């Protein structure tokens, strides 16, 4: 087990881990703000990335502007879902599991729409910054990977500060913890839930844009990302965005070590079996607080 | 261990939630076929004690003995099968099921047919089902609910829900019935009929542990214990209790 191999796999673990973390954060934000387990979170990433690909290659917009619009498209999609479906179902007091099924349905429809309108090819985005490479401990590091690590850490911290310091963030937190109490002190709970979905959508799109230079995006990748995002979020306790970030990192590193230590074909077996064990053994996940056996 | 005269006996039972001791050295017992009352202001630990006896909370110190057996390791279901059945402050009826079905659910513990027998509806399963049905029909007549028996429990008013909850508990032939604030949310004549039911159940040999604020209803109890900050400060008949100075200070702030 030479150092180069270990460093390279650790780096791959961190890079993938942060990808799952970004999806997980979006999931945790939406679940925290609306109690909806968003089974189409990965589609936010697909939509965000494809919007950037279209604007960049199709219309030749500057890269940063395309990225901004990609993030915006995720937020708009999030708002649309909340206004069109979630609001109606909450007013009708629909049972808990129908939200999971709703988001599965939306996920299927979006991925089918992406296939229908943008076809089957997979697209790559250019890396952020320059394309040169750095050798650290005999492991090859692309500059984009450094950008990804930095930006995802920034996003995680930014999200925590957003919830803690900004007035909108505090109101969203209050509306999610105790909707009735929040409403009684004049917080527009419905609007806060729309913001929650917009925030979750933007985070999902950001994740998509950050990973597309590494993993080519196509219409089928959404479900894959959602599954890994759920794994990350559950490891972190599902109601805690920071927990989801750490959960994602842990998941990525476990995967890399599973490939190096055991064999790459048992990667999914190991990671998802571990996920089931953690869900059973530690109901609150690594960091979460919400009790899970309460149901 | 005291003799078998008591269906339930508590010896120096203590319990604390995160350092704050809710129950301190509680001792009392419920003789067979008697009605024992438990009163105390809010925060006196009544509900905690109720949950400890019914098995919802594992108490930390002391002994809870039911029919002479230590109940520490027994699950809620085991206590219920042994005849120690609780009710809830707000009656929890099965809303999407009819009154008859609610009562039949209470009788399930008297039968033994397993899932396999039920699936293939073997003779024992059908016999059990018929028996449950007949017992439930009887209970409907006995509790005066025969006209409502095909209505969904969802549509019952509070009084009827309480009677349904008791009927459902009694059909399982309990030996100790625990009533938690049974009179809350009932009007005067509903409380009067509740009182008649309690006395009739005692006549049938069922011991009753009654937790309530309702002084008027408490007069039905043979012996009343007053719980204050996790300790029993007075015991005796209702008339003695009302004259007890310490109770008056605590309760009536005289």
């Amino acid at each position: 087990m030479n150092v180069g191999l270990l460093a390279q796999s650790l780096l791959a673990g961190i890079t993938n881990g942060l990808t799952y973390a970004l999806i997980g954060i979006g999931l945790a934000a939406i679940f925290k703000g609306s109690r909806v387990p968003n089974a189409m979170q990965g589609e936010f990433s697909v939509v965000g990335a494809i919007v950037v690909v279209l604007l960049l290659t199709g219309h030749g917009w500057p890269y940063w502007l395309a990225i901004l619009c990609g993030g915006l498209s995720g937020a708009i999609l999030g708002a649309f879902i909340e206004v069109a479906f979630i609001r109606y179902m909450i007013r009708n007091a629909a049972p808990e599991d129908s939200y999971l099924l709703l988001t599965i349905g939306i996920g299927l429809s979006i991925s089918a729409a992406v296939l229908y309108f943008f076809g089957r090819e997979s697209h790559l985005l250019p890396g952020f910054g320059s394309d040169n490479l750095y050798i650290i401990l005999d492991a090859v590091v692309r500059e984009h990977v450094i950008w990804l690590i930095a930006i995802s850490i920034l996003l995680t911290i930014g999200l925590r500060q957003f919830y803690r310091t900004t007035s909108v963030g505090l109101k969203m937190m209050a509306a999610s913890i105790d909707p009735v109490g929040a409403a009684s002190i004049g917080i527009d709970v419905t609007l806060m839930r729309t913001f929650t979905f917009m925030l979750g959508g933007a985070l999902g799109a950001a994740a998509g844009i950050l990973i597309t230079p590494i993993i080519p995006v196509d219409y089928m990748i959404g479900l894959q990302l959602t599954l890994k995002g759920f794994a990350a979020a559950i490891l972190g306790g599902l109601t805690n965005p920071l927990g989801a970030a750490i959960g994602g990192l842990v998941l990525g590193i476990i995967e890399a070590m599973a490939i190096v230590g055991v064999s790459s074909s048992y990667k999914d077996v190991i990671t998802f079996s571990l996920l089931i064990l953690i869900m059973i053994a530690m109901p609150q996940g690594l960091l979460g607080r919400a009790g899970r056996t309460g149901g | 261990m005291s003799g078998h005269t008591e269906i339930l006996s508590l010896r120096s039972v203590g319990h604390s939630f995160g350092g704050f001791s809710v129950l301190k050295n509680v001792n009392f017992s419920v003789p067979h076929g008697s009605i024992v009352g438990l009163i105390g202001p809010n925060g006196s630990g009544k509900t905690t004690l109720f949950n400890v006896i019914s098995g919802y909370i594992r108490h930390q110190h002391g002994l809870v003995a039911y029919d002479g057996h230590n109940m520490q390791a027994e699950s809620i279901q085991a206590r219920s099968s042994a005849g120690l059945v609780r009710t809830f402050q707000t009656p929890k009826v099965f809303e999407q099921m009819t009154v008859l079905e609610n009562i039949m659910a209470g009788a399930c513990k008297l039968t033994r047919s397993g899932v396999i027998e039920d699936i293939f509806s073997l003779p024992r399963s059908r016999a059990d089902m018929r028996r449950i049905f007949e017992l439930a029909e009887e209970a409907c007549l006995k509790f005066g609910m025969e006209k409502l028996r095909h209505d969904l429990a969802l549509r019952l008013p509070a009084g009827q829900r309480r009677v349904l909850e008791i009927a459902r508990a009694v059909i399982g032939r309990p030996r100790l019935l625990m009533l938690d604030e049974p009179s809350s949310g009932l009007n005067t004549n509903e409380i009067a009929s509740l009182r008649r039911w309690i006395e009739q159940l005692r006549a049938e040999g069922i011991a009753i542990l009654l937790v309530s604020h309702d002084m008027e209803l408490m007069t039905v109890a043979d012996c009343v214990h007053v719980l204050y900050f996790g300790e029993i400060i007075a015991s005796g008949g209702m008339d003695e209790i009302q004259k007890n100075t310490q109770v008056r200070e605590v309760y009536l702030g005289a």
Partner: protein
Amino acid sequence: MTAKKTYHGRAPAAFALIVAGVAFLSTPAAAQRSGAEPFKIGVILALTGAGAGLGIPERSGALLAEKIINSKGGVNGTPIQLVIEDDGSNPDGAISKANSLIHREKVSALIGSSQTASTVAIGGLTDPLKMPQVALSGLGPAIERDRKCVLHVAPSQALNAKAILEYASSIGAKKLGALYDSGYGTVVYNELRKLSDAYGIAFVATEKFEISATDTTTQAAKIRAAQPDAIVVVGVTGVPIRSLRQLQMKQTIIAANGLASYETVKSMGDAADNVVFPEFLVGEDPLPHQAEFVKLFHKEYGRFPKILEAVGWDAVHVILAAFKKADVGANNEKVCEAIRSTFKGDMTDYDFSADDLNGIKLSNIVYSKLVAGQFTRLPFQAKEK
């Protein structure tokens, strides 16, 4: 979960809409009969789902064949008609579509499907009827060996493995790395393992990844640590090749022909360089007998064909040759014998009577090499041992 059902679902008008919609769709239009009775061939391909990358190019080849054959007057004067169905990349869909083609459309022969799973499922229906079936997938499980009426125009996995090892030993590579997916990769890899000793080649690092893998950097790092002379990649996506090149590995990559398509090359981005494919057709520099097909294809679609398009084209011709030999009205058994013989296709020469059911030889393999994203034909020619 004690979700109480206290919601009150309104009786929406939408419900009537959905029921009406389903009812309206349930009477598919009857296939109309036009002019002379066309010679119908059923085609089942994976046009949606994971296998769409195979099905769609195969369809373009088959449609071109239909167009050219009909422009030359069809088969003994009767025009041919391809009835194309999509199995959605899974065997369940294949079974339903095969039933419909065989019994409703009354096709005379079947082409299908793009993937082994669906091919074997369809074989279960065509074999008892002894209906000729030309599969576009390689030879699959053991059962396919005793289905005498099912032909495989795609090379067997054993041949792919031999072709890879031939090239590896020709460039003097003694220590090989292998990066293969849990699908065909495993099948080809097992064949490689069996044959490698005969070529004096050792596999120093072998890593598997699941089909839907989005990243194989860790596996590539393990291979890099073993410093192989060359690396064999078997899969259907460009992901493994990109991972190897991202780790600055300069060795030659020998990739199975599943990756030899313009689409996969595009998804590899700048990693598509110094990659060798043992395949059958280089559009940019075709063999003499392939030139006409390449010209026709380029005229029709404006791009060069690869192995999948050629396989679709050859499949149609194989069936027609068999029916010509056993005349159009013949019953299935006779056509089956007729089909079990040699056939000079545009992609390669076949001998369907051989035990691996397609008789493609090493000498038929054309080696191509990616140079900065462009396919170039290598002069190297593997010889039959």
